[in-house]
């Protein structure tokens, strides 16, 4: 079990740390970094399903018999791009939020909003 599955568990540990960063930090940029870490670990999980022991990259060449599976790689390519799109959108939002609130800390922004609300 350990010998055949430890890679998954390492990936899972990475995922957990990514998720922990997203959830625990109040800074918007840190959240996005955490999201990237989390997603990168998920991508690793995908790719690990395609790997064949002793295989190589699925670029067909003479003399090579064993290839790893190309499909997970394709899926991950798409997913990476989706993740990047999310990150850049999140960053754009972060820039706007900093403009409006003068901070990127979620807690501070919420406090600012609440105090404005009670003042008004």
């Amino acid at each position: 079990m350990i010998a055949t599955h430890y890679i998954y568990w390492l990936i899972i540990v990475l995922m957990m740390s990514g998720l922990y960063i997203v959830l625990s930090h109040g800074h918007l940029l840190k959240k996005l970094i955490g999201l990237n870490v989390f997603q990168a670990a998920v991508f690793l999980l995908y790719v690990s399903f395609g790997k064949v022991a002793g295989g190589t990259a699925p670029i067909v060449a003479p003399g090579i018999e064993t290839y790893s599976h190309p499909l997970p790689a394709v899926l991950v390519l798409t997913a990476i791009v989706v993740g990047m799109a999310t990150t850049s959108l999140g960053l754009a939002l972060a820039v706007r939020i900093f403009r409006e609130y003068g901070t990127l800390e979620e807690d501070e922004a919420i406090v600012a909003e609440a105090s404005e609300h009670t003042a008004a």
Partner: protein
Amino acid sequence: MTHLPVLQVLIPLMGAPACALLRQRRAAWTLFLLVTGGALVCAVLLVLRMEQGSVRYALGGWPAPRGIEYVIDPLNAPMLALVSLIALIVAVYARPSVEAEIETRRIPLFYACMCLCVAGMLGVIATGDAFNAFVFLEITSLSSYALIAMGKRRRALLAAFRYLIVGTIGATFLLIGIALAYAVTGTLNMADLAQRLPDVYGNRALTAAVAFVVVGLAVKMALFPLHSWLPGAYAEAPSAVSTLLAGVGTKVAVYAFLRFALTVFGGSLVFGLLPVGSIGLVAACAAMVLASAIACFQRDLKYLLGWSSVAQIGYIVAGLSLATVDGISAGYLHMINHAVTKAALFAAAGVLLMRLGSVDLQALAGLGRRMPWTFAAILLAGLGLIGLPPTAGFVSKWALVLALVEQGQWFVVGAVLGSSLLAVVYVGRIVEIAWFREPPETPLLRPPAVPMVAMTWLLVLMSLYFGLSPVLPAALADGAAVAVAGRLR
């Protein structure tokens, strides 16, 4: 005709880059209108085609497990029509509303994002491939993050960012779920998955896969307690966007849940071996009661409606969680009816926002008399939320209670009814403030925009029509439920 399934998605999707190239706001709007109109035509034709059986469309010409396919069956054809219809109505509604709320130079890009949002939803609904569903779900999500952030107040940005984080975590959970299912079967095609999965029932990886898919979609559909993003996001979004999203945004995730739970994993796993049904019922009860209760205490009309949406998702999930033909039919029916009703309410809120500059409940005091049409619309749609005859809400509540009683879920029936009572309270609050307070002397900001009021009323009348003569939506919902009847338990 053979290309209808792909045209359904392609028309709005290709409309987006075209919109982005335009510089005239009216030109972009016209394009958006045409695109949604085209989508509706496709959807209606597809619904009509359903009489001859399901339609499969192999994209790229590669047969199913190798390539991606679109599968249109009675389960998703009505959803396509619903999304297209609401989108078309929103398109007509959007012109004055967007011109009032969005900077002129951004309008073409705004409509491009709207196109993408619609295209993404249609793509999720039409696809027969698990991973493709994820991709299109993300198109919808990304565009809606941006659209929500276009709201007038700065809180819109925070709401959009929160939605972005939560939504992405949800999407990643879905991704993990798909990965695990892939790992134990080696395929992504839904039909192929459905065929291979029963061999590995009991596999713990598959159990985890179900859990991740369900949790991921629960986030996207804002099921209690993963709903935190919804009220802010819907309330702060520009009127046209909140109308579209409140109408069909979460419904797409609900549909995806249905699709994954029943046709991919199979009801015997999800609702039989795993306790998803009971968990769904508990979450639904909590959503119905708690979210309705919270809605009663809101100070802002759009937040109130947002919380009400969380509650209404509870109704839908309650029906689906029963995993009986009647339950699914009831949930599906409520999906249709609530889409129309809630879109009407957000549309009316948009009219108010445009004319008053605020939808704070206190700002509505006494306006029922000065804006009779808008408030009558709110009242009628509000009755739909409560579920009183003769609105559409009554029909679905009837069907839902019936399905629940049939299964002896008295506790859930109690929650449904309790939630309706809370709906009486929050709708009653609006009515009381609008009609039983002294109207202010201040003049209104703008004259009413005819397309906005007209579309609001169109939605209200649809909700009334579906209430008086629910034959069409009921037939569609029954068709959908019957289509998955073989895979329930």
